[in-house]
């Protein structure tokens, strides 16, 4: 398990540093937008309930039916432990960011080892950019980053589409960049296009509790923080991978 040990050390070092870095970036760029959106989400949750109990007119009924039909936007409020706002919530976000960093760093390091070519920080940067394309850009085309309180298709359908899109985009890019034959490249492009031709699962009707401007600024913030994360993770994994494996 010597290889695994080296890969794990590479991933933990890179993942922790990139995770701490992106935690700071999230605090600046995405968390404030999430908190603002939650104010609208909470207001929207209480408003229909009052309307329904007060009147039983057509509009209130249709709102109720709609919520039951889609029902996905409010799932997380149905109970269970959640961190209290402030320090505790931010601590869990930091932990989740770091674990995500280690997880993606493990995938990158495994890919470097499988590829078997010499690595350095700069080559790592390009792998990081590929990771950004695979794990952020491609799925975001069909399922853009969403603030809390956005109506969306059932969670399971979106997760399946997300995983399929990531797998096809990653496989497609690998065929394009890592093989030298035109047929494989054409197949790679087809694989990247396929999930978007099929289409991402969409809600019955689009609705967001937050104003459109807020939703839009979140798309920009989430995409840019993700780019910074992947650039950092690529550079760091390339750097630490080189150090771990050159001593062997």
């Amino acid at each position, binding site marked *: 398990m010597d290889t695994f040990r080296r*890969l794990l050390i590479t991933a933990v070092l890179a993942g922790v540093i990139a995770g701490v870095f992106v935690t700071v970036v999230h605090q600046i760029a995405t968390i404030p937008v999430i908190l603002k959106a939650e104010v609208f989400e909470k207001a929207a949750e209480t408003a229909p309930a009052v309307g329904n109990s007060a009147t039983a007119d057509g509009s209130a009924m249709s709102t109720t039916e709609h919520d039951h039909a889609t029902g996905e936007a409010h799932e997380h409020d149905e109970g269970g432990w959640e961190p209290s706002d402030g320090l505790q919530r931010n601590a869990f976000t930091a932990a989740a960011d770091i674990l*995500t960093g280690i997880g993606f760093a493990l995938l990158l390091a*495994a890919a470097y080892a499988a*590829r078997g070519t010499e690595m350095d920080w700069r080559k790592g940067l390009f792998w990081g950019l590929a990771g950004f394309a695979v794990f952020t850009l491609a799925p975001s085309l069909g*399922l853009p980053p*969403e603030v809390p309180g956005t109506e969306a298709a059932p*969670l399971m359908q979106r997760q399946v589409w997300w995983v399929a899109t990531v797998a096809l985009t990653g496989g497609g890019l690998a065929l394009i960049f890592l093989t030298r034959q035109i047929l494989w490249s054409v197949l790679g492009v087809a694989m990247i296009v396929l999930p978007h031709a099929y289409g991402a699962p969409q809600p019955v009707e689009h609705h967001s509790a937050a104003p459109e401007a807020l939703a839009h600024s979140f798309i920009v913030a989430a995409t840019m923080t993700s780019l910074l994360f992947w650039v950092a993770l690529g550079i760091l994994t390339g750097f630490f991978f080189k150090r771990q494996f050159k001593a062997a």
Partner: protein
Amino acid sequence: MQINSSTLTHTVQNQTAIGSTSKADAKLGIFCAAFLGVALIWGVGFSHINVFHNAAHDTRHSNAFPCH
């Protein structure tokens, strides 16, 4: 992304980078690393367990993982 490596570089690198460890060790290590990576990402970003979701809520939104 490294795309210009010849087969020769590939082989030499396998010997020097992965070192004296066996090919089987390398394969097992790569598999374990990738599996652990997927498991971590799944737990943080995709698990339906409510506590996991609530703890990682802001990370899930910030990473544009399908949420709620």
